[in-house]
């Protein structure tokens, strides 16, 4: 009846695991109680969960990312503490629990922190930057969100029921095969990734269609803000790379559940095929994670240097070149696994080649800074911290691309240092910059800058303290994923690394305080003009937060940095005249997407625990709900032209009052907002 699910599933094997389960359960209960006490359920359902608006969906994506970031960060902290004390001793974590921790940490950071973070930021920003009223497929957008959330919920469930995989974030068989890991762990991993992967694919398709079909008149491709270009490239990579992951995990699931022989040791199975498929997705994936951050940095650096980005076209071509090349390097993840020297040489060279467009970008950003009138708000700090730190990571990457070097440090913590050196400054800092930069647009008030800076400095210094020692340790021969060791020379460096994570923890605390303080002072921080940074692209021309329809009359774009140019000309907020306003349609809320997310969760949960009837139920429910949707009519709501006109007139009048002299000139709106 309940498959493999029984009382044994409770996490009594480790005190830390039991505590984590308790915290997770209490956390959920606390949220439920809070919502009930404050009578917020209807509000939550109507305003948020069922909303199909791109901005709200984007915000929900980011909330998922931040919650999961907290969990994955705590796991990193536990790993670091364990390694700091585990010299010649067992430390405080049982071996098996330690293995779960690095697996969940890696998998969550990639699938449930960075992916939803960047998807959420693209959601909020992309339609506004290209002058669109929403994404191309709002309902599909909600499906993507709720599938991703279902995947995250599945990972959270594994805290309480059963155990997560111990096979690392890359889940290589034979280790994750049925013989070595017969439990539910790898199945949790498989299904969480599958749900997230489908969610991402759906989002990628949506972004591509939006960019291709919904750009405002005059917004040619080569006039798009760079963030849109990187969103496009990332989406293309998602659409073409994720199928490889889907195949890899599905086949592994078939092996485990039905005794197929794709990746088994016997009967003609071929483990290398998993490794190939995984990295065929995995390398493009790192660019999926990094490119949107590059886009955000381009916007931030230009805005806070108060000049246009240097080498726009070269940045576009570098982005696309990285996208194409990212499919040609996957073998560098397993130079040591028996390919011939020529094959290794080819992939080594390709890996160095991909550093070239990346280098082009770095120079473009430096030239943008050069002779700019720099302002050092929090987003800009993250951008500069990124530039300095990322170059180090890039250099170590080129080192690793030399197969003989890779042989000596393969699978050591040198590699851990390298990819954290890419992904923390390159992707996470990019998302933090984007978060601080676009927060006022999405929510309506700015984030407190002082706490933002403190957070930044702790993150930056903590990063160096936590990861630079790992380069050394790697060269001293420390392999990754070690839960104990007997080499006395390592311990001081591991203690230093743990101290670094404590610094990062202080950064996280600052960021939490920043959110609280900003919310408390939201009236003082209110972004009245919609243009708090003297921005350059169209998103800053609308109110913060923008109305549900974004643009009552779609803008006509005549140049790059369209909003900046129009401010220079003193025509930032033109009055199109009453005749330009037409009735428009916005999507009505729909609870079906939430329901599909739940159905998918049930399906995945049942598949993990092998509860046949429940899986069938979840599958049938998902299918029926989709069909139901296709029979619905009246899924959009008309907003009359008069409403739009009145709204715009009100906003123009408010802007006249805010900006002295009533004339909206270059920078005037911004200085009005920033005392």
């Amino acid at each position: 009846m309940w498959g493999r699910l029984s009382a044994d599933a409770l996490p009594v094997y480790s005190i830390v695991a039991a505590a984590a389960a308790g915290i997770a359960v209490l956390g959920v209960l606390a949220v439920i109680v809070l919502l009930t006490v404050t009578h917020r359920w209807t509000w939550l359902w109507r305003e948020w969960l069922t909303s199909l608006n791109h901005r709200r969906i984007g915000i929900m994506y980011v909330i998922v990312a931040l919650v999961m970031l907290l969990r994955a960060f705590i796991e990193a902290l536990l790993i670091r503490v364990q390694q700091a004390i585990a010299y010649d001793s067992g430390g405080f974590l049982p071996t098996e629990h330690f293995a779960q921790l690095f697996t969940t940490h890696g998998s969550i950071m990639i699938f449930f922190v960075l992916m939803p973070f960047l998807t959420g930021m693209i959601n909020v920003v992309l339609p506004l930057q290209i002058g669109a009223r929403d994404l191309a497929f709002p309902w599909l957008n909600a499906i993507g969100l709720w599938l991703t959330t279902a995947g995250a919920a599945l990972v959270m469930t594994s805290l309480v029921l059963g155990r997560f995989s111990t096979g690392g974030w890359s889940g290589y068989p034979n280790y994750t095969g049925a013989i070595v890991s017969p439990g539910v762990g790898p199945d949790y991993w498989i299904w969480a990734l599958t749900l997230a992967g489908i969610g991402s694919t759906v989002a990628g398709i949506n972004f591509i269609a939006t960019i291709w079909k919904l750009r405002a008149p005059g917004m040619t491709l080569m006039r798009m803000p760079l963030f849109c270009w990187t969103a496009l490239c990332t989406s293309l990579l998602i659409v073409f790379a994720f199928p490889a992951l889907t195949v890899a995990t599905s086949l592994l699931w078939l092996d485990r559940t039905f005794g197929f022989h794709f990746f088994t040791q016997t009967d003609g199975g071929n483990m290398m095929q998993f490794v190939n498929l995984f990295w065929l997705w995995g390398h493009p994936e790192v660019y999926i994670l990094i490119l949107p951050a590059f886009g955000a940095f381009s916007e931030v650096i230009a805005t806070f240097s108060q000049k246009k980005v240097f080498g726009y076209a070269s940045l576009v071509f570098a982005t696309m070149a990285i996208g194409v090349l990212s499919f040609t390097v996957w073998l560098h993840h397993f130079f040591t696994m028996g390919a011939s020297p020529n094959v290794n040489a080819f992939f080594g060279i390709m890996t160095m080649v991909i550093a070239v467009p990346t280098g082009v970008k770095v120079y473009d950003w430096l030239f943008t800074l050069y002779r700019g009138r720099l302002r050092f708000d929090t987003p800009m700090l993250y951008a500069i911290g990124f530039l300095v730190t990322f170059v180090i990571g890039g250099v170590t990457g080129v080192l690793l691309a030399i197969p003989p070097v890779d042989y000596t440090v393969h699978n050591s913590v040198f590699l851990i240092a390298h990819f954290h050196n890419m992904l923390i400054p390159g992707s996470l800092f990019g998302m933090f910059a984007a978060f601080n930069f676009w927060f006022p647009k999405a929510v309506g008030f700015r984030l407190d800058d002082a706490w933002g800076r403190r957070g930044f400095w702790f993150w930056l210094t903590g990063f160096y303290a936590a990861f630079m020692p790992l380069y050394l340790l790697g060269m001293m021969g420390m392999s990754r994923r070690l839960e104990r060791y007997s080499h006395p020379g390592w311990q001081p460096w591991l203690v230093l690394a743990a101290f670094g994570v404590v610094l990062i923890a202080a950064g996280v605390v600052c960021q939490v305080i920043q959110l609280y303080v900003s919310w408390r002072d939201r009236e003082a921080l209110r972004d009245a003009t919609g243009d708090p940074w003297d921005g350059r692209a169209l998103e800053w021309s609308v109110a913060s937060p923008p109305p549900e329809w974004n643009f009552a009359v779609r803008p006509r774009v005549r140049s790059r940095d369209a909003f900046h140019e129009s401010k220079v000309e003193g025509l930032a907020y033109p009055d199109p005249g009453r005749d330009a306003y037409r009735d428009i349609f916005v999507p009505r809320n729909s609870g079906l997407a939430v329901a599909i997310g739940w159905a998918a969760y049930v399906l995945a949960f049942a598949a993990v625990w092998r509860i046949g009837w429940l899986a069938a139920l979840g599958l049938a429910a998902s299918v029926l709900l989709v069909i139901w949707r296709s029979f619905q009519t009246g899924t959009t709501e008309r907003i009359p032209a008069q409403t739009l006109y009145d709204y715009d007139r009100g906003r123009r009048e408010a802007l006249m009052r805010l900006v002295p002299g009533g004339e909206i000139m270059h920078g005037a709106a911004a200085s009005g907002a920033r005392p």
Partner: protein
Amino acid sequence: MTAVGSAAPSMDRVDDDENGKSAFGFWVFLMSDAALFAVLFATYAVMMRGTGSGPGPAEAIGLKYAFPETLVLLTSTLTMGFAAMALHADARRSLVVWLGATLVLGAVFLALEAAEFHGMAAKGDTPQVSGFLSGFFALVGAHGLHVTAGMVWGLAMLVQGATSDLSAPVRSRLGRFALYWHFLDLIWVGIFSIVYLRGTLG
């Protein structure tokens, strides 16, 4: 010259599907699905050598079912084409008839495939026997699952075609369904040549 002006009202139609965003988005999905099949084909090619103690392609695979399967699916592409023509001509009756015929053929295809799989299993050639058979069942089965999904979708479209007013969304969905069906046929041609012909002939 201003950088941001206001669009002429005639350009202001983004809320319906006039600019073909749904068809475009569906094409992108098909590209992604094609990538999925490309990976499955590649995996099959790798697994072909992994016969373990089981049979090789020449012994395990035959044309007895695959040939009629191919004929049925190709015919269903034709009937789907007629359905699309009927849609263009606003001929609801023939739309329903041709769409119905397509689904019947799809069902026949699935029945043949089920019989084929069943026959193989009866001989002992199950996916559990070897990497090669796993690869075979996964690739051919993935196509079969796509056809099954297509049947569910097609039934929903049959109902909508028969009962609704053939509004723009219904038309657009029917168009995408036709695209999907043709796509599956294309994949099948690949499977037939690479798995069946190569398996039995060479």
